[in-house]
């Protein structure tokens, strides 16, 4: 186990390194001098430009700049926003809880809908229920999150007037954005659970269990589900990534002041330090989640021992 763990962590090192380099280079890859980008529309005299270059340390060699950027980042300093001059890290941490709340709620809804629909479809293989469930799943997959968000607003906020359309705080403001965010993932999850279940249902040990005469209920719960849901754990981890990036859109539509909404704002305003810092934060968070998922996966499935 510890060997597997060490291997998995070691494998992440180059990824994290490349991610930080790529994010660091972002500012330098944008057309034009970073100092000009920094000053933005403000009229920049050569003296001012030179001063900004000096302040930003842009006159130093690239690798020195990278090391100082990373040194600061490790201490939690991602620079200041070009627009508001507030530290980037502070803004991220202020907004993070709202995004985590949204992503967690969406993940739970997606898991609930996806797993139940998948199980129902698999247990009724090749019946109307199966066809219907898979048709629903296909519609779910084909619904862009901005479209399902607007539909949910139209139905529950405009027509039925039972839930608020925008804002944050309280469960009633969480239901619509979380559901919208969950639908796509629920669709693909349902398909995966179904095919995973069908695969397990065909295995010999299921036949044995049935032959022993235990009730079909027990066969499904004890033997089929336990095995079929193992790969689903990995998928759920990957879905958290989709949730994080989907939050960019849902937060914009539902006017939730989370990281995603800030991100779009920063891209639109060319607030490069903000974009840079947030990108680094989200990417590293995602890499971390993936490690956790892999470790959990190895724990619940003792057959996994690859390095």
């Amino acid at each position, binding site marked *: 186990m510890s060997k597997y763990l060490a291997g998995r962590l070691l494998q992440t090192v180059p990824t994290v390194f490349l991610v930080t380099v790529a994010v660091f280079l972002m500012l330098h890859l944008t057309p034009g001098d970073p100092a000009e980008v920094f000053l933005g529309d403000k009229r920049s005299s050569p003296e001012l430009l030179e001063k900004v270059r000096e302040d930003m340390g842009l006159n130093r060699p690239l690798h020195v700049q990278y090391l100082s950027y990373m040194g600061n980042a490790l201490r939690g300093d991602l620079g200041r926003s070009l627009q508001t001059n507030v530290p980037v890290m502070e803004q991220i941490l202020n907004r993070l809880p709202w995004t985590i709340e949204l992503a967690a709620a969406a993940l739970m809804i997606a898991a609930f809908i996806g797993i139940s629909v998948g199980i129902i479809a698999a247990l009724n293989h090749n019946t109307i229920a199966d066809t219907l469930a898979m048709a629903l799943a296909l*519609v779910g997959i084909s*619904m862009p999150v*901005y479209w399902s968000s607007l539909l949910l607003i*139209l139905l529950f906020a405009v027509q039925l007037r039972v839930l608020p359309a925008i804002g944050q705080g309280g469960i009633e403001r969480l239901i619509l954005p979380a559901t919208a965010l969950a639908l796509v993932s629920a669709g693909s999850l349902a398909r995966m659970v179904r095919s995973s279940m069908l695969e397990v249902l065909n295995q010999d040990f299921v036949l044995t269990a049935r032959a022993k005469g235990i009730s079909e209920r027990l066969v499904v719960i004890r033997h089929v589900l336990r095995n079929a849901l193992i790969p689903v754990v990995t998928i759920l981890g990957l879905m958290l990534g989709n949730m994080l990036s989907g939050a*960019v*859109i849902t937060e*914009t539509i539902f006017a939730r002041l989370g990281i995603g909404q800030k991100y779009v704002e920063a*891209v639109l305003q060319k607030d490069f330090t903000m974009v840079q810092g947030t990108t680094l934060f989200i990417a590293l968070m995602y890499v971390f989640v993936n490690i956790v998922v892999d470790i959990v996966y190895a724990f619940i499935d003792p057959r996994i021992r690859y390095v």
Partner: protein
Amino acid sequence: MSEARVPPANLDYQEARRWSRFLKRFLRSRNVMAGAVVLGAVIIMVLLAAQISPYEPTQQFRRHRLQAPNAEFLLGTDNLGRDILTRILYGGRVSLQVGIVSVAIGATLGTLLGLIAGYIGGWTDVLIMRFIDMMLAFPGILLALVIIAVLGRNLQNVMIAVGLSSIPVYTRVVRGSTLSVKQFDFIVAAGALGASSGRIMARHILPNVLAPIIVVATNGVAGAIISGAALSFLGLGQQPPDPEWGLMLNEGRDYIRAAAWVTTYPGLAIMITVLSINLLGDGLRDILDPRLKL
């Protein structure tokens, strides 16, 4: 034994048989046919936008703002009095173009990297795959957003961004298939006969890994349309006043209470198109799945 008497010149014949078998399964699958017919209709309507749309896409009828669907404006008008049907038809050109161009970019580069990683192996493989891992650390639309942030916001950059961010899927699929194909005797034989690596990859491996590429690319077009429209929805792609489905959805957002049709129809257009492509892609996967046949 009867096979042995078939002259080798009959390769064309075998090829034709494979095609006819493919076509038969294609025509027999209800889902695939439904997807193909709907998608075909969408493509024809969008291509004929200039001929069949009643008005001009940016033409404003100031006296007819936010009109509900009626005989004059079949799908209603938006806040500037522009005909929604016309804008959907013209906007579809952009969405389909984004879908196809991005997939072309992503599939070409991704396949190339996958072939090289899989066939050459060694350090090249390690380097390419670490690079792909790095790209995968930016989930979903995030990578496209980063690329737009660097390149600037316009439609051309949307296609580049969506295309580049789809590279990892192709690289992984192609690399995996290449690894299994390169074990075959005919590849080893080609190498022994002195064929260069480039030639082996292009002439011998590529044709054998095409099936999964086609499947991934088909579903990829649907994904690219969704992502492209998402970027325009966020104000990072197509700029007003030109129409695009995602942009139209965003423009109608403010009027959702009073004039729901402004958002409903462009959304429906995206969904129908994506649904038909997904039906087609799922069907192609069932038919072409290399584990089943090939």
